[in-house]
């Protein structure tokens, strides 16, 4: 984006080519990205104090990767996210299809109830999960990965309504004549679903899965209330490290996760194209 060097005159609706607009966007992007970039750069800084550049080092990565607690938390987080994604996609797809397809009594209430996990504040849901698992005496101290079950259940509960939302809005663009065409050509219910509905739903499922994975990996508050001492997730671990002290080790671990996010995004882009991802949100 050349700020200067304007060769073509600016058409009335080319707001993006106006200088003040470009400065505004540059400012917002700086605001959004500068802290992240600073964080990443200083994960390579050879200094305990974070702010002055003292030279390049990888020692904090070494430290982070040898920090068993941190690695365990990361593995826990990824395991929970993977499980939550699989279950959320299945449940969410079912719920989305149900709302898209059927007329049934109390549909408005069901729709409202399904959107509750999205709008109820995280803190309230965390509290509810804490009380619920305490009340029903959910077993604790199970061997890995069963000890993650409570957190995973909580994550599925707040992830699958998002998937339902994405799937439903994807299905809204489905041309029902395609389904009739399949039946007209001899396909039964299952064949129609497999050959026509599912392929149309796929981008919604991918977007939903991506969303569920990110939400699960991201969640701190609800996990904070459901996790015990032996079920620490990455955000909970980082939280305690940040609370305790700000160290370059946290920078290193964060950088790893940011790179992971970017890699996932790139993968999604490769699978879906920039536009499809943008449309899904």
């Amino acid at each position, binding site marked *: 984006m050349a700020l200067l060097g304007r060769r073509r005159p600016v058409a009335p609706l080319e707001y993006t080519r106006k200088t003040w607009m470009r400065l505004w966007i540059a400012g917002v992007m700086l605001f959004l990205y500068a802290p992240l970039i600073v964080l990443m750069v200083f994960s390579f800084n050879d200094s305990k104090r974070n702010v002055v550049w003292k030279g390049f080092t990888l020692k904090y990565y070494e430290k982070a990767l040898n920090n068993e607690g941190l690695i365990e938390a990361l593995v826990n987080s990824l395991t929970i996210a993977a499980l939550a994604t699989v279950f959320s996609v299945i449940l969410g797809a079912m719920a989305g299809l149900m709302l898209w397809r059927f007329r049934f009594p109390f549909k408005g209430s069901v729709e409202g109830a399904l959107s509750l996990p999205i709008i109820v504040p995280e803190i309230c849901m965390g509290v509810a999960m804490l009380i619920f698992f305490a009340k029903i005496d959910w077993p604790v101290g199970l061997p890995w990965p069963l000890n993650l079950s409570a957190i995973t259940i909580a994550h599925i509960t707040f992830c699958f309504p998002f998937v339902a939302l994405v799937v439903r809005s994807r299905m809204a663009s489905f*041309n029902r004549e395609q389904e009739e065409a399949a039946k007209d*050509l*001899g396909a039964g219910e299952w064949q129609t679903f497999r050959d026509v509905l599912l*392929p149309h739903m796929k981008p919604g499922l991918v977007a939903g899965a991506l969303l569920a994975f990110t939400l699960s990996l991201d969640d701190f508050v609800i996990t904070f209330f459901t996790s015990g001492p032996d079920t620490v997730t990455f955000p909970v671990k980082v939280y305690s490290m940040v609370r305790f002290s700000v160290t370059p080790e946290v920078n290193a671990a964060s950088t790893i996760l940011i790179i992971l996010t970017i890699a996932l995004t790139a993968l999604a882009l490769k699978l879906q194209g920039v536009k499809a991802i943008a449309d899904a949100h």
Partner: protein
Amino acid sequence: MPDTAQPIIQIRNVTKRFGKVAAVDNVSLDILAGEFFCLLGPSGCGKTTLLRMIAGFELPTEGQILIDGQDMAGIPPNRRPVNMVFQSYAVFPHMSVADNVGYGLKIAGVGRAERDERVREALSLVSLGGFEDRKPDQMSGGQRQRVALARSLVMRPKVLLLDEPLSALDAKLRAQMQFELSELQDKVGITFVTVTHDQDEALSMASRVAVMNKGEVAQLAPPSDLYEFPSNRFVADFVGSVNIFEGKLILDEPGRAAVDCPGMGKIFLNHGVTGPHGADVWVALRPEKIYLHVPGEGKAIRAAGQDAPEGYNLARGQIKGMSYLGDITLYEIKLDGGAMIRVSRPNLSRRDQEHFTWDDRVSMHWRADSPVVLLN
């Protein structure tokens, strides 16, 4: 072996209600094997519902539908011997052209080799040979429609149903496809049933047309009969352009009849109409069947082909509007009696339209076999 006279589809007293509204109201009609049948009507007249009932996507509230003599009650769409070309074409966007066309055969369990062969045949039938590996989004609307056609034809159905097949095409392509569809039907010999709201489409393609209005069949006839001998005002008005005048039947004998239309004049017909004397009737007169001339000239022209008594089938008026349409010019004329009439006149030579212009006094006449008397 179905002989041509045997109905391939029999619709018997079929009614379809959505809630309290009857979309199709007690319709009975037969569609003969090998014909190009068209359901014509304005939107909401029930034509698409009727088509979808034949396909099995809607179930009749009352009545019976038989295809090739077999009652279709309880038979789902995927087991009916008919196939449909959808209005949106419903070409599967994630499958190649060949996979689209071969889909039904694959479901039916037809082997790979035979399937490929039949897909190729069907594609060449619709002039899409060589497009096998294309994806639908790389094709134009017209090409996608051909894919949908091939996909249905490859199933060798007893009846091919087409829902508004040309509505999504632009005017030029539409004219071409009208012609091609008729040709295709000739070639494959399958019964075609199509639904349209466009009278040109119906008149140019179909061997028989059922005009529908408010869930009922208003008239079932070959295209030329619909145009020349409409049986009621709805059909006269819906098919083509027409002047309709209200009047009283003042003469009705075998071989001649006359209607007095206030505001317009007296109309003479060279055939009887079998209506009670003095009854309120309507007379339909097509704009192109009216001769237009400068006052005074008329007598001489009429004298040559006199077929009505003096004072009948004659009107005078003043041109209030005209639109030049290239092949014809359309005139809006205010008659001395007060009624408005539309007259079209072919532009037989260049600058022909300059012959008459705004505010000119003109006189008109028409032949005694041109008007149609309508009883309802």
